[in-house]
């Protein structure tokens, strides 16, 4: 079938502002939006740019705004968003991060926020004397499972109205990453992370708009995890 792609284009070497590129491509209904973008790049205009790698929703490279919603271009099928032959699909860069070129945004501010919440395991206690793994029961392992699914695609953070308003806010992805360690029974740095998230640009910037939960391609209940961090701060208890 034929679809009409309307893609937000911007090349800082040539353009003073962004413009809409319009392209018709022939696709199968079961093709991914990423396949349609490739048809533009490979056979119509090689100057067009999008980041991508695995093409099946695991590496997190191709977060873009499709028909106004943050999605991974490789995880949306044409048939999921198009009804009729010739229908239009709009593709824009995710919002709130500086655009480098076309659909490519500067990910550094996103990763800086990520790094600010100590997104790594901390436990300096002596290792088990038998040289084996630290034990963790099934319920304790389950407690932080949701956050471990995060692929750092930035769909959540760049859908967040609080982040759009002030990009100093650490954003939902960073809170999810902090949650993954705060609620891990083996970790010993929860208090330090909570202190970071209690600061002005921390978790209290969240206004529970739920955009993040809707945007997450990994179906992580992001707003719920943020709520659990807020509760830990409010009650002083990590449960």
């Amino acid at each position: 079938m034929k679809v009409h792609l309307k893609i937000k284009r911007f090349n800082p070497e040539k353009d003073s502002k962004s413009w809409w590129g319009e392209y018709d491509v022939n696709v199968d209904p079961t093709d991914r939006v990423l396949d349609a973008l490739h048809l533009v790049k490979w056979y119509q205009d090689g100057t067009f740019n999008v980041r991508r790698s695995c093409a099946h929703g695991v590496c997190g490279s191709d977060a873009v705004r499709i028909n106004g919603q943050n999605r991974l271009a490789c995880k949306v099928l044409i048939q999921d968003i198009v009804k009729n032959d010739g229908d239009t699909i709009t593709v824009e860069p995710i919002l709130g991060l500086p655009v480098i070129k076309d659909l490519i945004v500067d990910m550094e501010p996103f990763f800086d926020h990520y790094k600010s919440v100590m997104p790594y395991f901390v436990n300096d206690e002596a290792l088990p004397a038998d040289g084996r793994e630290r034990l963790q029961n099934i319920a304790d392992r389950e407690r932080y499972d949701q956050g471990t699914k995060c692929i750092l695609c930035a769909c959540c953070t760049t859908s967040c109205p609080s982040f759009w308003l002030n990009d100093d806010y650490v954003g939902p992805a960073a809170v999810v990453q902090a949650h993954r360690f705060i609620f891990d029974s083996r970790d010993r740095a929860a208090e330090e992370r909570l202190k970071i998230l209690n600061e002005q640009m921390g978790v209290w910037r969240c206004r529970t708009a739920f955009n993040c939960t809707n945007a997450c391609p990994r179906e992580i209940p992001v707003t719920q995890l943020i709520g659990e961090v807020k509760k830990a701060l409010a009650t002083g208890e990590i449960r």
Partner: protein
Amino acid sequence: MTKHHQFDAIIVGGGGAGLEAALHASKSANVAVVTKLYPTRSHTGTAQGGIAAALGNMEPDSWEWHMYDTVKGGDYLVDQDAAEILARDAIDAIIELEHMGLPFDRTPDGKIEQRRFGGHTANFGEKAVMRACKAADRTGHMILQTLYQQCIKNKVNFFNEYFVTDIIVEDNVCRGVVAINVADSEVHLFHAKAVLIASGGFGKMFKVTSNAHTLTGDPVAAYYRRGLPLEDMEFFQFHPTGIYKLGILLSEAARGEGAIFINDKGERFMERYMPTLKDLAPRDICSRCIYEEVRAGRGIGGKDYVYMDFRPGTINKFKSGPGGRDVTREHLEKALPDILEFARVYMGIDPMKDPVPIQPTAHYAMGGIPTDADGRALADNTNVVTGLYAAGECACVSVHGANRLGTNSLVDLVVFGRRGGKAMADFCKPAGFAPLPITAAADTIAEFDRIRAGRGSERAAAIRADLQNMMTNYVGVFRNGPDMQKAVEGVRELKARFKNIKTDDTGKIFNTDVLETFELGCLLDLAEVTAAAALRRTETRGGHAREDFQERDDANWLNHSMAYRADDKRDAAVTRCDIRFENKPVTITKFQPKERKY
């Protein structure tokens, strides 16, 4: 303007092998990781089902059994000294990952939980054993995330989205690498005492593949272009369970949990071929059996695919669950969430209700840059390139021989990434910086100028599509002389077309038009070596199955192949010369080659 950097050690690639090496090397050396992606985008993150180690948490197990399975799985082309290290070191390496916080699934008593996987057995082939440590079906994701997290903690330097184009080797001494900063196309020289290549695979030479778009083997091609050998390139693994037509992988963990193959007649056909392990036979065998069924007209609806059936009703009817126990839908949803979702999203099929159409998909390069067991890259059968290392899929130690066992890729990258990182740190302590040649970047600049100026008539995408079709059709699961001859000649024709390239983007900022064309050039070189090495090997062994030579031939072919460019040129461009082959002996220690049956 070329920009200069100096580090004790440079690691090319930010996947599992690169990050393991970076973590260990950075304990004493000043290290930088140079990667064409953000590290968390690396393909290690797509590995699903598990990482093997004989922890024995579920049932008795031993590293000797793991070693034996690895050797037999590789159809005895495995170097057994390396396989012993793989199986022994796996235990420590996985415990170390747990100590870094990796969220492994747990047993009721809090230990790391393990599951069955193809070709992993107890007591030298007696029955399937639970050896694969896992985090649901996102084990690779958790390994990649955990290693990246620890690299942040340990303040490892990263150059993200820097594309390495060339390895600087002179007088058999590695001096650094050349890279292009994707953001602005500036050329950067990384001067180093030691370099470790961890660039992953190059499966994008095939049409139906589980590999990412970015898996084009650029530094492996650079190694070859610098006159250095590539080992065992004819051995490429076709994983039996790719989603039909798309090639997206559905993990072998599905069969570990009890899923089975079904043909058009509803038969569990693996019972006929491999009576002991059945659906848990190694991948090369399962892929061939699927196509045998298709050839016999028993593909689904007579077509070129079969079903993988995950439905609890089927698993319980055939008693194919772990230990013959019944499984529930709830358990499968918990154990295999991602692959169930892949089937739902990309096929519109709910595997709990309907069987899933699958076909073999190009998955893993057993061959690559030859190394010793400490990751040191080899210049020939015995001598190392001073200061140059490789680990992970791009390397050939060789622990996979003619066919890799499931989970052993993650074991390989963790074990040999770690050993390579330690070895390069030790090397860096006394070593100085060998001087950089003044013209180190000249070949890269020349090739990129040529591509950027391309005003010909050939689109890279069209050449790439032709390459992928040809390799899938002619150098696939079953191979024969005339077809592979067509592939070798065909790649050479594509190389001629590559001269006449058409480039749209002449800019500097994020010019992936030029980079994708350079990547295609790398694939053309690697595909040519793959096809030529496969044509040369007149036997059937592991993943290399020939219709015209159907038996394994230990008398003539129990050796590795080493492929060198045959001319004297050394540059960063696509080669236009013959390939010279040599043989390298296989190291055999504990297990004499036997017939391979399961």
